[in-house]
């Protein structure tokens, strides 16, 4: 039973999400923790799912094409080809696109089909916690390289969080099979610039066995196109053949529960992922894929007074970023303004956490409980504003780097954001 007991006990271990969602709920907290919106998907998106289940013929309600429901693959190919930076790349809906159960399962299929035991996967910390878990489950070895933090810089994520190039260069070895990039970045909101990505491309060129998985789920939450545009690594010279670009419908269309994610890449990567996905889940849900296929087409059309749904989305989130930034700053939770994504990392150094919280039983905290974890629990339970501690985004050795930060989500209604501000000021006092 040894294989069962060791793997199953690690799989049974609760994660930060298992702890904070119920805690927020039980405390009646405004949940600025987990990254999901608390509003309806846009009307055209909901209508698309209503229509998809209701199609006169049963076709969409049954198994669809395993690799990717064809209308979705077509809509995605058209979407990517319409982007100027992608227009030189060959995107064939039949061979360059795969869909799976959310971006999470796209990433899993990529690791599972391409990693051999002992292969290293380099993650840039802080990194979304699922990457390391998936790598380990697939027999790979996660390796970590931290972004550096410079709080003396202007307090935006692009300025505060940077690469240590020597460390990064040293971290890529002949055993490194995959480098995971995430831009816009969770949790910091940093967007990797052309000079940064070009420098990474040089390292990739120097390591012929290295692939890059670029997680771009926050690609439409971009607040300054001119100075900080979203750049897909796959579009850099020579990088198409080396790169899997991942994204999903959930963040863009406020449908995190619909589980439609996709990968775009060269045929040799996509085929291996598809070969595997056949046997993991056979296909992602057909009805939500159909709904997203229709939504992708509609999203390019004028929406409200904007040129497209995407333009409206970015403007709405930019507005919410401003609201939450002001509330956090007003209580001394110094916000590092993100250029992308819908999270704000705030410096919590000026906030005190009662000692007692450190000794509360926790399903998933490292022991001893790190400062950011305790502070997040305190805010959730006592201030009744839930935030996520960034320590789960770090490898065990580097957990201390998270100690003075908290991650807040602003993908919440204005009312929720205002209420959060009110509760923060009530408990922590205006500074």
């Amino acid at each position: 039973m040894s294989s069962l007991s060791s793997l199953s006990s690690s799989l049974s271990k609760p994660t930060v999400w298992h702890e904070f969602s119920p805690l927020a709920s039980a405390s009646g907290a405004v949940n600025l923790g987990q990254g999901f919106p608390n509003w309806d998907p846009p009307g055209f998106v909901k209508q698309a799912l209503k229509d998809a289940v209701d199609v006169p013929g049963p076709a969409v309600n049954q198994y669809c094409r395993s690799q990717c429901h064809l209308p979705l693959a077509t809509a995605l190919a058209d979407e990517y080809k319409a982007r100027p930076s992608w227009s030189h790349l060959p995107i064939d809906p039949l061979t360059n696109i795969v869909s799976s159960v959310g971006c999470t399962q796209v990433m899993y299929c990529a690791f599972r089909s391409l990693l051999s035991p002992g292969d290293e996967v380099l993650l840039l910390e802080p990194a979304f916690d699922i990457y390391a878990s998936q790598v380990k489950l697939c027999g790979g070895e996660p390796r970590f390289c931290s972004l550096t933090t410079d709080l003396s810089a202007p307090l935006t994520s692009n300025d505060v969080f940077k690469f240590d190039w020597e460390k990064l260069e040293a971290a890529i070895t002949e055993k490194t099979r995959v480098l995971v990039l995430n831009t816009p970045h969770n949790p910091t909101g940093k967007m990797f610039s052309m000079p940064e990505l070009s420098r990474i491309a040089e390292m990739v060129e120097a390591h012929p066995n290295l692939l890059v998985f670029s997680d771009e789920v926050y690609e439409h939450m971009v607040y300054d196109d001119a100075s900080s545009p979203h750049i897909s690594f796959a579009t850099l010279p020579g990088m198409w053949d080396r790169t899997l670009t991942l994204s999903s419908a959930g963040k863009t269309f406020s449908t995190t529960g619909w589980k439609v994610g996709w990968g775009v890449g060269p045929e040799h990567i996509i085929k291996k992922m598809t070969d595997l996905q056949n046997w993991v889940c056979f296909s992602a849900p057909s009805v939500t894929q159909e709904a997203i296929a229709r939504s992708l087409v509609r999203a390019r059309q004028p929406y409200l007074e904007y040129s497209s749904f995407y333009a409206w989305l970015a403007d709405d989130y930019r507005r919410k970023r401003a609201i939450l930034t002001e509330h956090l700053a007003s209580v001394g939770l110094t916000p590092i303004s993100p250029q992308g994504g819908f999270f704000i990392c705030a410096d919590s150094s000026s906030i005190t956490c009662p000692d007692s919280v450190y000794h509360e039983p926790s399903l998933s905290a490292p022991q001893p409980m790190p400062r950011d974890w305790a502070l997040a629990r305190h805010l959730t339970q006592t201030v009744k504003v839930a935030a996520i501690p960034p320590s789960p985004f770090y490898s065990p050795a580097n957990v201390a780097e998270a100690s003075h930060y908290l991650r807040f989500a602003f993908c919440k209604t204005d009312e929720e954001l205002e209420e959060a501000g009110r509760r923060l000021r009530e408990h922590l006092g205006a500074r």
Partner: protein
Amino acid sequence: MLSKSLTSAARGTLLMSTLARSLSTIQTAPRMDLVSGPNVFASFSQQATKHGAVNLGQGFPSFAPPDFLVEAAQEAMTTPLNNQYTRPGGNPQLVQALADYYSPKFGRNLDAMTEIATSTGAQEGIWLIIMALVGEGEEVVCVEPYFDAYVKAAHLGGGTITGLPLRSTGSTGTSADFELDIPELEKTLSDKSRVLILNTPHNPTGKVFSRDELQAVADVVKKYPNLIVVADEVYEAAVFEGLTHERFATLDGMWERTISVFSAGKTFSCTGWRCGYMIGPSNLITPLQGAQGVIAFAGVTPIEVAVASAFKKAEETGYFESYAKMMEEKRDLLVNGLRDVGLEPVVPQGGYFTLCDTSASWCDPPAGSGYSSPEHETDPLWGRRDFRVAQMFTEDAKVTGIPPSASYSPHNRDPADNLLRFAHCKEDSDLTEAVRRLKEFKASRS
């Protein structure tokens, strides 16, 4: 390094073509070559479309899900949080609805939070089970013919597969003829056996295992305290002839070691929705919840909420009774039609599928004829008689069935040579049209 005097675009092109040559042999995870061939179900579905064939191949209904399920989904998405992440391991409404429905059937008070796990399709459930339970070199014993997802998942996980054949005595012309040989089970199981996979109602034979038959298996299984039993019961709603669907987990002493697997997709005719679930003791189920949390994070929220509502509606409206009756009538329609054509059916006691005998000479692919699907060159499986018959039927008769030899271990495939699997989970018009086309094809070959 490349010359900096080239433009960056030219450098990019040169590098891309260099890499394209080397990446055509991209390094993959171990054993990926075992799955580089096509999925037989997907391949025949594609071919059915291409040739305009009536698709009685892959196990999905050609009729729509019940109205109350569609309405439940449309209703579910009107609550904002039903479109956002749900609980990894199973939406609380769904697992509670399942606990309510299945507790009486299992004769126990099921704990919704720890004894039930959802997956995006029962097939993903099989993947989670194998991933969580089967390590490198460990043995999975599968009753065969089997649903080949078990075997592919086990192979990819580094497990070894041992097939345990159902053999036909051929006396009743029904799926009851297929029997397990208990002495053979005794010889097959050992301390090295990690998982035994049972499937009732059985795909592809349609056998519905009796309680006595399952008890005989349990009596052997008892000797192996480390053996886990996976009871794949996805076709539980389609049981005919007034038979009872028997649950291995309800036999004495078997609850503690059994994971029962179910499919809302099969029960509610919505195979594309991807909603499956597993029931068992918490020490076997909580690792599956954790595994789902890593590979998918969670299931599809509006779908899980809709299925929760559907279970309640189904009980109120007598859906399960009317569904079983409907499926039995479809079985009868196909069975009678196949008999008329001279494709002697093995009448299934349950499930979605009917096997039939293709040994008549008009079913022989003509000597020297191609009938090679595109995959023929790479995998000898595709050159076997049942594959060539299936190909010929798809291309020329324009009726698609699934060749069963993919469902047997390589050394046990001979019984499949003269068999073809047809799905009866289809609109009556599809079934009658398929029979009409087969009659026409037969006439053309006499």
